């Protein structure tokens, strides 16, 4: 075969091919994940995507290096926001060094002196406490929970029309085994006064804004009558290690099933409130329309028809991790399609896999169960019987009967995306 016939197929060309093919097939609305590995090293990804939806699985930023971290995908550098690349989701637990990062304000801890740091439990309590890390480890019973931490805006770059904010792909999530003390044990030790309604959390993260402006500190609260209070822990360990500084050393709040906005990092103040918290971070942002799936339209928002409520429980999601479309698959080779699934409202009980764009489904095999708040891995052995393009799809169901929908969602802040995920792959001859 002559050299001239074999042109180097560029990523851009591939995108056009896939785009063109999809348009021909009338599939232009499908967000088919494009490969993000094994491309030409000299050919960079685009610097941004839009105004169309981001076609890649992850965000398009460059790889960057931070303390205690492997190269991750840059979203922003000050404050730091980093996305976990796709292939770290092959395992049920996401390595700490690959765990995504999201801060709100630029004053992020670089160094913490544990002989001076204290966890304060204060506010509407009988007895305020100032606890050292050693107190937390020795005076209280240690508990562990596997829980998914996901940014409310994970997959925001799928929104149409696009909304401003961190343009996450799918990697603003991770699962870890968190170890620490129960929030209720701390509250019981301090003695919550009758008439208390919420608990507020504040960390060491501080912004350049004027004191008490919303750009100075980040405050989040949970209601005392929310059942999640009983499952919330103050974690000093993550996957059997101290927390990475960028993931909230010395301790962070773990609120199983809820979006990460409540998982305060570098947690330092636990404040019991006798009135509901109406601060900006509770009532003006991290809010979603009070509609099914938090779905609305730009028009309804503009005309003031949408009532907003704080974002809460994570809807059910599942992902295809491999194959990722970076290479072709030989005909009739048994392929182990692998991925993860999770739901904030209950154990994942079923994952369905499709090789025909969701027309027909078959049950995937579920991996080990690490508890209702953990990633659940799944796999399906798939033997392609014809050559050509396939659209693989995955759909999860939880114990409450929640099934992933095949419709996107739109809201002004870019939260709650959980549409069925797809991956295009090409199967070619093997002889």
């Amino acid at each position, binding site marked *: 075969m002559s050299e001239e016939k074999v042109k180097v197929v560029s990523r851009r060309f591939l995108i056009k091919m896939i785009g063109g093919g999809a348009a021909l097939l009338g599939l232009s609305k499908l967000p088919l994940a494009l490969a993000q590995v094994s491309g030409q090293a000299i050919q960079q990804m685009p610097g941004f995507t839009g105004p169309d939806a981001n076609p890649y699985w992850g965000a398009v930023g460059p790889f960057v290096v*931070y303390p205690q971290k492997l190269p991750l995908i840059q979203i922003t550098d000050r404050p730091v926001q980093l996305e976990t690349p796709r292939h770290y989701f092959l395992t049920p637990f996401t390595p700490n060094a690959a765990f995504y990062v999201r801060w709100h304000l630029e004053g992020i801890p*670089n160094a913490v002196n544990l002989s001076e740091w204290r966890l304060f439990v204060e506010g509407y309590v009988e007895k305020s406490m100032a606890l050292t890390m050693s107190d937390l480890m020795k005076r209280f019973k240690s508990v562990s929970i596997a829980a998914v931490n996901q940014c409310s805006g994970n997959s925001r770059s799928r929104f149409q029309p696009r909304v401003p904010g961190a343009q996450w792909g799918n990697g603003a999530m991770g699962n870890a085994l968190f170890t620490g003390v129960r929030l209720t044990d701390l509250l019981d030790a301090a003695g919550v006064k009758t008439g208390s309604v919420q608990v507020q959390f504040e960390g060491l993260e501080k912004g*350049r804004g004027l004191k008490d402006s919303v750009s100075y500190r980040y405050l989040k609260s949970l209601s005392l009558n929310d059942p999640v209070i009983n499952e919330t822990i103050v974690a000093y360990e993550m996957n059997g290690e101290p927390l990475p500084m960028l993931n909230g050393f010395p301790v962070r709040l773990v609120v199983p099933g809820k979006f990460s906005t409540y998982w305060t990092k570098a947690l330092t103040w636990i404040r019991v409130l006798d009135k509901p918290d109406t601060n900006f971070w509770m009532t003006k942002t991290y809010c979603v329309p009070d509609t099914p799936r938090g779905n609305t339209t730009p028009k309804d928002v503009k005309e003031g028809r949408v009532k907003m409520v704080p974002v809460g429980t994570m809807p059910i999601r599942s992902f295809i991790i491999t194959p990722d479309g970076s290479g072709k698959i030989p005909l009739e080779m048994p392929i182990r399609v692998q991925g993860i699934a999770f739901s904030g409202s209950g154990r994942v009980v079923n994952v369905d896999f499709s090789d025909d764009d969701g027309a027909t489904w078959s049950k995937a095999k579920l991996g080990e169960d690490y508890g209702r708040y953990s990633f659940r891995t799944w796999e399906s052995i798939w033997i392609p019987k014809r050559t050509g393009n396939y659209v693989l799809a995955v759909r999860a169901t939880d114990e409450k009967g929640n099934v992933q929908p095949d419709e996107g969602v739109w809201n002004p802040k870019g939260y709650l995306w959980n549409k069925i995920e797809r991956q295009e792959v090409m199967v070619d001859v093997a002889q």
Partner: protein
Amino acid sequence: MKKIIYILIGFLVIALNKPVLAKTGLPGLVRSGQYSKGTLHSIIQPDSIQQSLDSIYNVGTYPLYTPDLASGEGREIIQGYCNLCHSVTYITMQPPLPAATWEDAVYKMINTYSALIPEDETKQIIAYLQAHYTPETRRQ
């Protein structure tokens, strides 16, 4: 002299990016021995920082990787004001946004996040963002 010729051939091989010396006729092999220039040090491998027994848990500084903003009138004003609270990566990471969305974003910084930006500069910042970061105007 021979050495120089070998070096020149070496460069030629790399420059042509073709296996000129390796026409093998191996079964099924379409291409091999092709390389292209990569960017060295684009992702550095960081060293661990020195620890000491002082009760301080320290990870050092966080590197800034801030891309250049599009050149044009108002860029210095943007860099001056926006950089106070966050890097301008917050601008470049966005998708192209409609002109009205940029205007809303700037007023959100002022009215919600208490950014202290005088009226004239506010207008210049909005004009700059609209001139370089909308679906119609964005180039980089």
